[in-house]
C-alpha cells in the first residue's frame, strides 16, 4: 500500500500486535542480560499508543502526526531506557515526515532521523550490543535500496532484513552500554533485546507496506 497516513496507523497497530506477541521473548532476552522489563515496558507503551489512536477525534493529516503521537506516548509510558530512546527516535522521525505520503527517499530520511535520535540520546555507537546495531545496518540498507530506485515498500523490506541480521549479530558482542554492561563478559552469547524490538518494529513497517 502507499505509505500514507492510513499506512502509518496500520504500521503502529501492527507493531503493537507483534510486540504483544513477542512480549515473553523480549522479557526473556532482557532477563538474560538486563532487568527483564523490556517486553512488558514495550507492550505497555504500544498498548497506550493504540488507545491514543483509538481516541483521536480527527484523523491525523500527515505521517509525522502519527509518529509524534507514538513518540510522546512512549516517552511517558514505557518507563525503561527504551522510552527515551524510542521516544526520541519517533520524535526525530516525525520531524522529517511532515508529509501526506512517504516515497523511497522520505523513508530513508525517516530511518536516518530515528537513528540519529537514538545515538544522540543513548550516546552509543555500533558494536556495543544495543539497538544501534540494528538501526545502523537498516539505515545503510535503506540508503542503498533507495539509491537504486527501489519502491518505498522494498526499501522498508531490506531495512527490516538488515535490522534482523543486525539483531542476530549482537549475540557475540560484549555489552558496554546500559544495564547489560554490568555483566561484562557474561553479556556475550545473548541477543540484545533493544536490537530485537527494533527488528520487530521495522518488520511490521515492511509487512504492512507490502500488504
Amino acid at each position, binding site marked *: 500500500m502507499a505509505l500514507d497516513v492510513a499506512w502509518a496507523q496500520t504500521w503502529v497497530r501492527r507493531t503493537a500486535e507483534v510486540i504483544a506477541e513477542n512480549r515473553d521473548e523480549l522479557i526473556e532476552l532482557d532477563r538474560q542480560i538486563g532487568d527483564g522489563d523490556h517486553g512488558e515496558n514495550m507492550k505497555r507503551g504500544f498498548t497506550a499508543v493504540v488507545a491514543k489512536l483509538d481516541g483521536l477525534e480527527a484523523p491525523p493529516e500527515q505521517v509525522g502526526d502519527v509518529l509524534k503521537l507514538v513518540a510522546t506516548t512512549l516517552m511517558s509510558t514505557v*518507563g525503561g531506557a527504551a522510552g527515551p530512546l524510542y521516544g526520541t527516535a519517533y520524535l526525530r522521525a516525525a520531524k522529517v515526515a511532515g508529509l501526506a505520503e512517504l516515497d523511497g527517499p522520505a523513508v530513508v530520511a525517516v530511518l536516518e532521523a530515528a537513528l540519529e535520535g537514538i545515538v544522540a540520546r543513548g550516546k552509543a555507537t555500533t558494536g556495543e550490543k544495543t539497538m544501534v546495531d540494528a538501526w545502523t545496518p537498516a539505515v545503510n540498507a535503506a540508503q542503498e535500496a533507495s539509491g537504486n530506485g527501489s519502491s518505498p515498500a522494498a526499501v522498508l523490506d531490506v531495512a527490516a532484513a538488515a535490522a534482523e541480521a543486525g539483531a542476530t549479530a549482537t549475540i557475540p558482542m560484549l555489552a558496554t*552500554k546500559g544495564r547489560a554492561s554490568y555483566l561484562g563478559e557474561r553479556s556475550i552469547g545473548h541477543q540484545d533485546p533493544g536490537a530485537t524490538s527494533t527488528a520487530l518494529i521495522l518488520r511490521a513497517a515492511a509487512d504492512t507496506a507490502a500488504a
Partner: protein
Amino acid sequence: MTAGVALVLVSHSADVAAGTAEIAGQMAPDVLLLPAGGIPEGIGTSVDRVMAAVEEGLQTCPGGVVVMTDLGSAVLTTDLVLEMVDDAERVKVPRAPFVEGAVAAAVAAQQGGDLAAVEAAALEAGVSFAPEGAAAPEASDEVDAAGQDGQVTALVTLRNPLGLHARTAAQVARAVADAGVPVRIEGVDGASVLALMALGTTGGQEITVSATGPDAQSAVDTVVALVEGGFGEV
C-alpha cells in the same frame, strides 16, 4: 523558608527516591527535596514524574535544580526532560552515587550554596565514596599497553594550584567526551569527573595524557591545551 537550590531525586524505585529524600531532609530541613521515583506500575523512570518535579523545583527555587539519578534510564529520562523544559540551564545533573550525592548536595544547599556549589558537593561525595586512589570503574588496562598502534601520549604540567578538582575535572571530562575519543589521564578514564578528581592531583604535578586510534592526536592536544591554559585559575 526554602533554600535557593532544589534537589530532584530520580530513582527507578519510588521507595528509594522517597527514602533518600527522608535521609537528606534530616540534614537539610529547609531544602526542597522532590522525589521522582518509579512509574505507576512499579519499577522504572517516568518522564511525567521527573518533568513535574523539575518544573516545581524551578518555579519554587530561584537558584535552580540539581537532579540526582540512579541507573542508566534515569539519566536518559532526565536528559529528555531537560530538552523539554524552558530553563534547562538552571538544572544540573551530576554523575555521583545516588544517596551520598543527594545528602552532600542537600547539605550544600542548606548552607546556602549556589547551583555550582551544590553540584560540586554531589561530585565530591562520589570521590570520598570511592576507595583511596581508586581508578574509574570503567578503567581497564587495555589502553595502557605501551607501544600499541597509533597511541599518542603527552606529558603536561598542571599550572593551576588546585589541579583537577571538581570544576576543572568537569571541564576536562567534557572536552574528552566532546572529542569522542577515549583519553586516559594518569591511567584513568579522562571522561569521568569522579576518576579525575580521585587522582588527587595538585598544581605543579606532571600528568600523562594518552589516547589511541584515529583523532587520538587532536583529542590529546585538546586536553593538553586546557591544562596549559590553567583553566582560568592562573
